[in-house]
């Protein structure tokens, strides 16, 4: 779920609002994190639920509660299979919400959890996931304040869905605002991309392919805290590139700030197994989901300290400056190759599908 970055209370009501969402039915693409999802949020949810003039959409909403600003976000997890190399749905459900708050400049304090369970789900599977959640919550330093459970008939859900809603305390000194991004700012990426999406694709067992690959699911909070300590005032924008990948997150930034993003392909870290799978399947690692990475835009004078701070945190060793913000191509993301070619990188359209013929 993307939120409006707004401090004003949400107003809805009888005022006439313009609904721009014209798609006839909901399709998988509307949940894939790309263009269709954006159309749904901006064309239907935002005008009716957030008021008439949506600003840029962030990973969490910042709300004022009696003089204290807190960050709030929610996320649902419907991953199939529920467990996969490197993680499981329970771990994702905690880390995903912790990360959405972290990249909004907040430390998750409290979560509430909703389970939607399919009748017939073995209790052992549920127990394993609840244990995974407890472990991930402890690692991220977040408390579970409560929850809700619903059970649906067998066949009406796929084993289990988990939804988590989190409230976070703002980390001092960080302001996330795409409008503050300037030409010359550096784009920082925390580590190798595509591990999660490709791991899931292979774990489904539909493609006869195997690779030594694990999901990157983890809390990015320790990395963001280190970054904040070293360079808080230099941080302009952050995002965790989950569904839709780095390409979609950076396109949203380019659109929101009206500037161009220019990346250098050879600087983008990608594991060989991910590259290989993407080459075979005709996918672009930049469109593949991540669950333990984040992107940050930092002011150029803070780039070195930011990189140093990140490289000292466990898990941040592979961080890279992958490009910079330019005046042009305004509103778009361009990638350049070491041999002199370049191409525009668009948002993901629909789900990434293997290309065969």
């Amino acid at each position, binding site marked *: 779920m993307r939120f409006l970055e707004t401090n004003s209370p949400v107003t809805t009501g009888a005022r006439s609002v313009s609904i721009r969402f014209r798609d006839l039915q909901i399709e998988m693409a509307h949940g894939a994190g790309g263009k269709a999802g954006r159309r749904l949020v901006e064309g239907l949810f935002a005008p009716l639920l957030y008021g008439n003039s949506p600003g840029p959409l962030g990973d969490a909403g910042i709300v004022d509660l009696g003089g204290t600003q807190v960050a709030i976000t929610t996320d649902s997890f419907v991953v199939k299979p529920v467990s996969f190399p490197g993680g499981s749905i329970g771990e994702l459900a905690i880390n995903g919400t912790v990360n959405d708050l972290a990249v909004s400049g907040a430390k998750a304090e409290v979560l509430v959890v909703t389970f939607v369970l399919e009748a017939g789900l073995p209790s052992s599977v549920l127990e394993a996931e609840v244990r995974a959640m407890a472990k991930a919550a402890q690692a991220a330093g977040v408390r579970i304040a409560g929850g809700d459970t619903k059970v649906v008939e067998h066949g009406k859900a796929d084993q289990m869905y988990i939804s988590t809603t989190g409230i976070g305390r703002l980390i001092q000194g960080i302001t996330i605002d795409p409008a503050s991004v300037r030409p010359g700012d550096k784009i920082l990426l925390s580590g190798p991309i595509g591990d999660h999406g490709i791991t899931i694709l292979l774990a489904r067992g*539909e493609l006869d392919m195997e690779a030594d690959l694990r999901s990157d699911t983890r809390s990015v909070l320790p990395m963001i805290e280190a970054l904040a300590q070293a360079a808080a005032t230099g941080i302009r924008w952050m995002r965790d590139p989950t569904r839709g990948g780095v390409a979609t997150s950076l396109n949203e930034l380019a659109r929101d700030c009206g500037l161009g993003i220019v990346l250098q392909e050879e600087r983008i870290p990608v594991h060989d197994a991910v590259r290989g799978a993407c080459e075979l399947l005709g996918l672009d690692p930049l469109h593949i989901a991540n669950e333990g990475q984040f992107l940050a835009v930092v002011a150029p004078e803070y780039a070195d300290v930011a990189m140093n701070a990140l490289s000292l945190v466990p898990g941040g060793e592979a961080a890279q400056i992958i490009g910079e913000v330019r005046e042009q191509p305004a509103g778009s993301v*361009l990638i350049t190759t070491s041999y002199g070619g370049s191409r525009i990188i668009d948002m993901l359209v629909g789900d990434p599908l293997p290309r065969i013929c």
Partner: protein
Amino acid sequence: MRFVDEFRKPELISKAAEEIRRLAGTDRHYRMMEVCGGHTHAIYRFGLKDILPENIELIHGPGCPVCVLPMGRIDDGLSIAKDPNVIFAAFGDMMRVPGTLGSPLEHKARGMDVRIVYSPSDALKLARLNPDRHVLFFAIGFETTAPSTALTILRAKAEGIHNFTVFCNHVTIIPAIRAILDSPDMRLDAFIGPGHVSTVIGCRPYEWIAKDAGKPIAVSGFEPLDMLQSIVMLLHQLKNGEAKVENQYKRVVPWEGNRAALKAMGEVFQLRPYFEWRGLGFISQSALRLRDSYAEFDAEQRFEVPGIRVTDPRAAQCGEVLKGVLKPHQCKLFGRECTPEHPVGALMVSSEGSCAAYFNYEHRKTALTQLSVA
């Protein structure tokens, strides 16, 4: 990564680019058609136009199987799968291709049992796993994918599987090249020959292009260095006034092709008298159907197929773009009514289609002189 990085080495690429600039000079314009959609995709993905001199113009050819498939065929295939007992299986490439009432993915959203498979044998596996249901494999592709369909049908017959049929849309590349060359508004100097198709058919079937049509052709791989080397080969031929078939992709393409694959195709398929291509119209002997001896696996013979024909919107200029007469962005609908999310014309649907490739990678790319990031 092996077999990839070697062909993307900056030093070698700049050397090849320099050689191309030297050979191409400035006194004439060269128009080369890359036949294969995989090449079109590679040209945009690797930004090869930034490396090539301006007087080398690459024209995108008809070798994108999804793009040349008429909409009526999709409607026909999906009409069979309206029966809830049928599982519709196809490659990922097909999933977003629109029929009159939507793409396979849209039909899936409405409840049709649509599965993405990675190979025809995966579709056969579905048939084995679901003995009470019928699996329809919607087959597309040139000679690249036709052998695996043929082998799957042979396997199904050997195993005595009765709940599996193929809706065959396999096409052949040579008649399409002939149609392009026969077109009166076509002015081409040379061809970059398809790499994957040639692993099956070899290089011999192209000899008439050199001998009769007098056009040089270089069968090419898909990495940046492969394509640049192929352009060097073609420039050498053009400078020397030669026209012959050269094989740049020797590490994969045998001159004689793959005999086992050709044998399987010959056993299972026969040529259709004619077949409609999107953008190019009817081309005789340009597509494959199942032989009568395999009729039980032929969806068109086992099911009632409506035989729907849909004409493309008149405003879409797919034919002109497909033949290289127009560039993608010169079409009236490009980027407005016709986008990858809502494709009107054939070439916007697959990422190998020239319009989609142009839209995804080139569109909005402004002339940036200084691209290096400090």
